[in-house]
């Protein structure tokens, strides 16, 4: 089993700080969902993990070893991202040959199965594939190389909905058969939330939270009812969002409600409902409100 540990990691680009003092630890055969708004630092974060770049400060270790310029560790980590393939004239099958040489766990039979699932032609040059097919090809590489730590950075770009469906299904199937650590960054939160064991949210270069899916989602509660009653019930709670329609008010509260509080809400005629990960994400990262 693998463990990634980051201690007070920062990344500076000239006068811009992409990551600020980020510390975290990811461990075990889990599917991590990495979410954050545009420019939040997701790709920087992932490229550090994959040793594509070095941190300006702080330390990143996998199983206690530094990853940067450590070939042995880099072999254990694969980062699949939106590669620009416009000059890649190799055919699909030749690219797989390369993977076979450099990735010790690469499984050819499984790769062929996946190519079939995604209807990817073996004999076509990569740069002649459509954008969605190139993305599917990245997914095939990521799954079939079976590296202990597999990172997909918005790997679904350009894929149509049915293709994304296949990706999600095959990912879960693979995780059942050959569990390992997957890290997926995404903007398609509502579409992918069923895949995640744990969620990491990055906001403006900082780690906003890292929590398991269930406990994070159970912290979001929507309270709907008569505006005055809702206001009274939520006055001492952390409110993420409010909407009002006439005398009806819906408030999104952050923080777990106890059973007695739930009962009190219902006794007061309030509707209590869940909040989706997508809504939590939107309102946890939507601005400067405190």
């Amino acid at each position, binding site marked *: 089993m693998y463990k990634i540990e980051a201690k007070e990691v920062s990344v500076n680009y000239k006068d811009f700080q992409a990551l600020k003092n980020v510390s975290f630890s990811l461990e075990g055969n889990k599917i991590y969902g990495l979410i954050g708004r545009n420019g939040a630092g997701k790709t920087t974060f992932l490229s550090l993990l994959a040793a594509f770049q070095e941190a300006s400060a702080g330390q990143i270790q996998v199983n206690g070893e530094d990853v940067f310029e450590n070939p042995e560790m880099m072999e254990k980590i694969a980062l699949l991202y939106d590669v620009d393939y416009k000059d890649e004239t190799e055919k699909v099958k030749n690219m797989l040959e390369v993977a076979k040489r450099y990735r010790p766990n690469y499984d050819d039979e499984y790769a062929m199965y996946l190519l079939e699932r995604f209807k990817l032609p073996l004999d076509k040059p990569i740069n002649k594939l459509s954008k969605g097919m190139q993305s599917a090809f990245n997914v095939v590489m990521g799954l079939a190389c079976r590296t202990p730590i597999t990172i997909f950075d918005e790997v679904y770009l350009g894929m149509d909905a049915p293709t994304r469906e296949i990706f*999600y*299904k095959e990912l*879960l*199937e693979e995780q*059942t058969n050959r569990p390992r650590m997957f890290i997926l960054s995404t903007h398609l939160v509502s579409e992918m*939330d*069923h*895949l*995640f*064991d744990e969620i990491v949210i990055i906001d403006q270069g900082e780690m906003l939270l890292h929590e*398991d*899916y*269930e406990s994070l*989602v*159970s912290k979001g509660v929507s309270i709907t009812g008569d505006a005055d009653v809702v206001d009274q019930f939520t006055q001492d709670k952390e409110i993420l969002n409010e909407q009002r329609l006439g005398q009806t008010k819906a408030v999104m509260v952050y923080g777990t409600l106890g059973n007695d509080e739930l009962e009190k809400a219902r006794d007061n005629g309030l*509707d*209590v*409902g*869940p909040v*989706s990960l997508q809504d939590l994400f939107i309102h946890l990262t939507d601005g400067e409100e405190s």
Partner: protein
Amino acid sequence: MSKEFDDNKPIFQQVKELIEDQILNDQLKEGDQAPSTNQLVNFYKINHVTVAKGVNQLVEEGILFKKRGVGMFVAEGAKEKLVRKRKEVFLDDYVFRLVQEADKLGISESEMLEMIRQVKRSDQDV
């Protein structure tokens, strides 16, 4: 999220009850293979941790059992166990609320009994 699930109960609980219902109405018989976690995830589009939580509780309660490398199966005596358990909650979940609502509407006990008989009769006609 699928509309088969309502907001008032934890989703893992509802996943659990979904499988229990299939056992109770004989869609899943004792010894049958139960749907896998992935099948449930793909079908209902709910988080796989949530599904696993529901399924694992059924295993702990002896309703399902795992065959390594093969899958989940319905245990011997599962239906009987479920009937017993559901009867216990029937009072709290249904009868209590029925009486509460009836009181609210001023429905008398005999009126209520008559309604129950009516429903029972039309049930048998079908």
